[in-house]
């Protein structure tokens, strides 16, 4: 029974496909999985938009949307209808073809990323040997569509937003990759299913997730920083800073194309949180050994939603960075720590079991963090803003 529940989607697919002639079965099976992904995540997106608005409202001691349907839960439907019925404006001097392609390409690239994420036991669309690599290739190509959007609009705000976006995404691509590489170094595999499998054990009822090791914890924190920047979420939302750039690279988009951009951004957030879950939080494995009977996909999606909640929480808390602070932070702080983390992982791997490696690795990482943070703060590179002229 528990097993059936755990595998319910896999079995469902098998059962549906079994009605068809054998020659069709593989194709229809693939289509079914695609349809599941393409329906599920936009639905999740719709829910997230309401919860984000409600959560942000609560953080600011407001009520948030509460008019459409019970507790405002049907708000996304109203929003969807609104964006569908709005006029789709293409600026006269815009490059119409590229302008149209940008949101479509963004969505395609983002959806491709979901293909390699293991969302439950045996629930991965394509189990690639180099899944991680494929994922990063796909997530990096979203930068292209962002720049396409900014460039084709022929609008200074769009272009500025796109340039900021590209600069930011490329800068943070480096720490993103370097912070994930530690996992590959430990597991020796680029396959995401193998990475999940490597974290599936338990000691004293606690899981072997990588976040519970010194290097994994450091890696996770840096991964989280890099993903926030990579998905243009606050406090790294410079590419669409409303107060400076109208709406950044999608200034000239309206109606459904704008909705597609919006969707694309949230889906990117989901998929990158899913990857973070897979790399550091044990993917679909249960957090305690006595909870392993809960279906694996429930764990995956709860961890995903938890990460989304943290994203929203950060958005409600932190003000936007300045462009130079953003760059300094990426290249002078996160990157060196990522590189150091690589060394620490190597040390961890070759020191063998025992408590000594815990002490040494933690000491190195915390020491480096403290001294670097202290030094940078003292030099005023990062830390509280100082106003040279306004005081």
């Amino acid at each position, binding site marked *: 029974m528990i097993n059936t529940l755990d595998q319910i989607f896999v079995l469902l697919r098998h059962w549906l496909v079994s009605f068809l002639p054998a020659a069709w079965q593989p194709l229809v099976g693939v289509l079914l999985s695609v349809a599941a992904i393409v329906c599920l995540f936009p639905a999740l997106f719709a829910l997230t938009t309401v919860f984000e608005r409600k959560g942000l409202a609560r953080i600011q*001691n407001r009520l948030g949307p509460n008019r459409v349907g019970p507790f405002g839960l049907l708000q996304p439907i109203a929003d969807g209808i609104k964006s569908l019925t709005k006029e789709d404006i293409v600026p006269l001097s815009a490059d119409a073809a590229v302008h149209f392609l940008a949101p479509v390409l963004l969505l395609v690239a983002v959806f491709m990323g979901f293909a390699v994420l293991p969302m439950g036991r045996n629930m991965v669309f394509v189990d690639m040997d180099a899944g991680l690599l494929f994922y990063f290739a796909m997530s990096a190509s979203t930068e292209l569509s962002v720049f396409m959007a900014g460039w084709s609009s022929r609008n200074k705000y769009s272009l500025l937003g796109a340039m900021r976006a590209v600069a930011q995404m490329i800068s943070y691509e480096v720490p993103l990759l370097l912070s994930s590489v530690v996992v590959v170094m430990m597991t020796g595999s680029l396959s995401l299913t193998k990475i999940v499998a490597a974290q599936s054990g338990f000691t004293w009822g606690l899981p072997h997730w990588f976040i519970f090791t010194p290097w994994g914890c450091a890696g996770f924190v840096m991964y989280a920083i890099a993903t926030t920047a990579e998905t243009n979420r606050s406090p790294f939302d410079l590419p669409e800073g409303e107060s400076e750039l109208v709406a950044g690279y999608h200034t000239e988009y309206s109606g459904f194309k704008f909705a597609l951009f919006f969707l694309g951004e949230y889906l990117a957030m989901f998929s990158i949180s899913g990857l973070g879950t897979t790399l550091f939080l044990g993917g679909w494995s249960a957090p305690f050994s006595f909870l392993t009977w809960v279906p694996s996909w429930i764990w995956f999606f709860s961890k995903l939603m938890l990460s989304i909640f943290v994203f929203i929480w950060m958005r409600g808390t932190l003000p936007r960075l300045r462009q130079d602070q953003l760059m300094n932070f990426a290249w002078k702080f996160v990157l060196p720590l990522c590189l150091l983390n690589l060394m620490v992982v190597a040390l961890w791997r070759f020191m063998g079991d025992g408590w000594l490696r815990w002490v040494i690795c933690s000491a190195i990482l915390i020491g480096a963090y403290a001294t670097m943070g*202290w030094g940078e703060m003292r030099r005023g590179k990062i830390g509280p803003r100082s106003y040279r002229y306004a005081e």
Partner: protein
Amino acid sequence: MLGEGILKGMAETAKNFFGSYFSAERLTTVEYPEQRIAPFEAARVFPFLVFDSKNPGDGADWQTGMRCVACQICEKECPPKCIFIEKSKDKKPDALGKPQFYPVKFDIDISVCMSCQICVEVCPFEAIKMDTEFELSTVDRFGGLLLDRQQLAKSNEYYHQIHPAEAAGVDARLVAEKVKADAKARSAADAAVAKAAAIAGEGA
């Protein structure tokens, strides 16, 4: 240490988030159509024209009781020029009994009005005041937002209702003015009588 401020901020927002579910005084939002707050004395939206009615409450004499004398000062002073007045050819007695012009047409385009209250400040006859009515949406954005004199006319009682203190002050001033005008009229009449008597005396 680096990152301390971020954690502090996150703790603060988390406190807000959970606090808003438990403590009522955090959520100050008034859910508008269902709940309302009592209007403030100083609230102002768009201007209206005050009229004095003989028997309060019926509003039948909005035309005869209208205080406006069509002097057109407000029309000239209105910064966005949203008042349009057409002066009458004939005269009717005002509150003091003096024959005065009256507006045959008095339109305010509230889609243009910026609620600056300048018209109220400049009116020498206490004839135009600020309303507190704000639910003015209409499906006709041209005709529906152009209020004519009948739509603008509201009784003095209504004025007392929405701005009690201010209206009391205005009434006191008007009464004082009337007393003064009466006194002046009486002294003028007395003088005229005296003069007539003197002329009569001289002639005799």
